[in-house]
């Protein structure tokens, strides 16, 4: 029998390997906020003649938009991010670029957010994530109310959830300074979906532990948890695989508009599968065996009590 729970510290180590660079990046660079959270204007422009990115940047600078972000999105389209502009400024900008580059410009999409709404969106996103986490915790505690210490189950599921959130935000923080990928409202949407998915997976594993505890398959909680994880491993992997199939299909073929949103789901689902199998259950065991103290003293930089 494969011993997953027995290798619990290895899994914690693997998670730390993924999360710690992300946390460091978050601490130093934070996340690169999109216009949903920091206000501004984005647009995707299409030109009927071939246009170089450098040319476009120069023309924008001449029109006074020096701090612009320009990305080619393939098929001759350019994604541009500038400060918040008004309808009049927009008209000037489009006609200005069009005449300077001698091209017919089509505005494929255009999005502008004022600082008023951006601040609110940021606040609401934070509230949304917190409210979701609280409701999930309450729900899990309720679902496992017949188990001894239901809060413990809820807490472990939430730790797995926070793990997934950290993995995704950490990676996006790195992608932010490395590739200029921004965080928008759809990122929060993807994040909350991941949160739901992660807890969903954890609940399936916990459900099996709950059943096996009731059946009394072993006196040792560690053995019970381990066999519960193994019994659900086929389901966990298969469900994740089918979900990953469709997510990959959208990621590769679904067009650029929602690509980063799908990337959130892709990373989140992988992380969620891992955390529900390799973290949530083992954490229950760590807690049950009161290993927190040992775990803390195991950390090299903590002074060991005499």
């Amino acid at each position, binding site marked *: 029998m494969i011993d997953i729970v027995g290798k619990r510290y290895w899994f914690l180590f693997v998670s730390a390997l993924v999360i710690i660079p992300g946390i460091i990046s978050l601490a130093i660079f934070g996340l690169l906020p999109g216009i949903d959270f920091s206000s501004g204007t984005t647009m995707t422009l299409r030109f009927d003649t071939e246009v170089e990115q450098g040319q476009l940047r120069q023309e924008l600078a001449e029109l006074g938009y020096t701090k612009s972000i320009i990305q080619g999105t393939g098929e001759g389209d350019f994604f541009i991010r500038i400060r918040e502009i008004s309808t009049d400024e927009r008209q000037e900008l489009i006609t200005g670029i069009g005449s300077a580059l001698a091209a017919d410009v089509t505005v494929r999409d255009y999005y502008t957010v004022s600082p008023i709404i951006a601040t609110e969106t940021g606040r609401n*996103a934070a509230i949304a994530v917190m409210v979701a986490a609280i409701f999930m915790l309450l729900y899990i505690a309720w679902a496992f109310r017949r188990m001894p210490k239901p809060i413990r189950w809820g807490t472990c599921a939430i730790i797995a959830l926070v793990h997934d959130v950290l993995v995704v935000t950490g990676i996006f923080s790195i992608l932010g300074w490395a590739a200029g990928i921004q965080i928008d409202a759809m990122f929060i949407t993807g994040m909350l979906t991941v949160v739901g998915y992660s807890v969903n997976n954890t609940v399936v594993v916990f459900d099996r532990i709950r059943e096996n505890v009731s059946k009394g398959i072993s006196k040792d909680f560690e053995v019970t948890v381990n066999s519960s994880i193994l019994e659900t491993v086929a389901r966990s992997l298969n469900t994740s695989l089918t979900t990953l199939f469709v997510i990959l*299909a959208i990621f590769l073929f*679904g067009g650029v508009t929602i690509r980063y949103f799908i990337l959130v789901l892709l990373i989140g689902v992988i992380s969620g599968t891992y955390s529900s199998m390799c973290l949530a259950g083992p954490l229950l065991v760590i807690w049950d065996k009161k290993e927190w103290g040992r775990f803390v003293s195991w950390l090299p930089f903590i002074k060991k009590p005499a």
Partner: protein
Amino acid sequence: MGRNIRLLVFILLLFGFALWAIVPLDSEKLGRQGLTLGLDLRGGSHLVYEADLSQKDPSQSDDDAMTGVLGKIERRVNAYGVAEPIIQRQGQNRILVQLPGVKDIDEAVGLIGQTAQLDFKEIELDEFGEPLFDEEGEPQWINAMAKGIDGEDKHLTGKYLKPNASPVLDPQTNEPQVAFEWDEEGAILFEQITGRNLQKPLGIFLDDEIISAPTVQAVIKESGVITGLTLEEARTLAIQLNSGSLDVPLTIIQEQDVDATLGSDSIQKSLIAGAIGLALVILFMLLYYRVSGLVAACALAVYGVLLIAIFKLVPITLTLPGIAALILSIGMAVDANVLIFERMKEELRAGRGLLASVEVGFNRAWPAIRDSNITTFIACAVLYWFGGTFGAFMVRGFALTLFIGVALSMFSAIVVTRTFLRFIIRFATNPSAYGVHR
């Protein structure tokens, strides 16, 4: 068994009805007669305006001012000619406007959000009756006042116009202009003002910007024209005058415009992505679960058709993230099936009969299916609220679609899959057909 046959017939009828409801699905122009498409898919403009309520008429309540603005915007949008616009108040002082399929967005935005306060002004005179000029030599404009019906001094504004202004071309010069008529009180005011300003300019101001200052040639009573406009401006101004000026000024705080060609690109790509994803899932299920997989694939087909039928019949607006949620929900719909099949296999391995394994498998899998999907529902509910707080129709579209998808997938797994399985175990009796080796 008799009950199962009845259920099977019911499912097939439901499937047939749903299929009938969604066919023909014009895949080229999904949405014309099929699904309701969101702005990001069909193109158009999504605007959020904020009203400055501090500038309202103090005698008006906030709600009255907002209702007034909303009504006027509605008249403007209708006069402009947009199919299926959405105009909603959001929160205390915000207005959401969605204009699907609008071509000239700049024009539409200008038309809707402009206060369009029309003022008539005359040049201020000094005590000798000579016009006053400022340092730059510009005339000093003051509001044109006159005695109204009740004998009070009134300022002549667009308020006294009849709602029948229209853009016309001057028969002589072919210049665009807006022809208007005064109501009863307006006519009285206009008569006095033109009377005392003969051979002097009369300034016509729109939102405090002068649009023309014709010289008064005669005493006029009922009607007049506004010149100095382009044809487009004349058209816009006529609509604005007829709807009335907005009670409070509006500013755009969020705007999202999507070109129709981008939308149809997105639809094409999503359809391809969905087809590939679905094919992969079905292939995987067939290879891994054999007969059960076939059942799951059939259940998935029923699920897909029912889902699209719900979208069409309710109708629910489909957005790009909504499509992503739809495709995602295919993956999740399989989840409940996987849970059940794994339980079933366990029971088969333990030596139970097929029928018993199916029943026990379902009963054992149910708590996990229920508990796990509830967490997704919680996430959807929170997202729906979040999307509503800043008018993000994309976020809402995703949340609503995922919710419906997951709810329907529970029905599909518990009712459809079970019914199909109960039916098929009579024909495929070998456990190895279900992926069990013993």
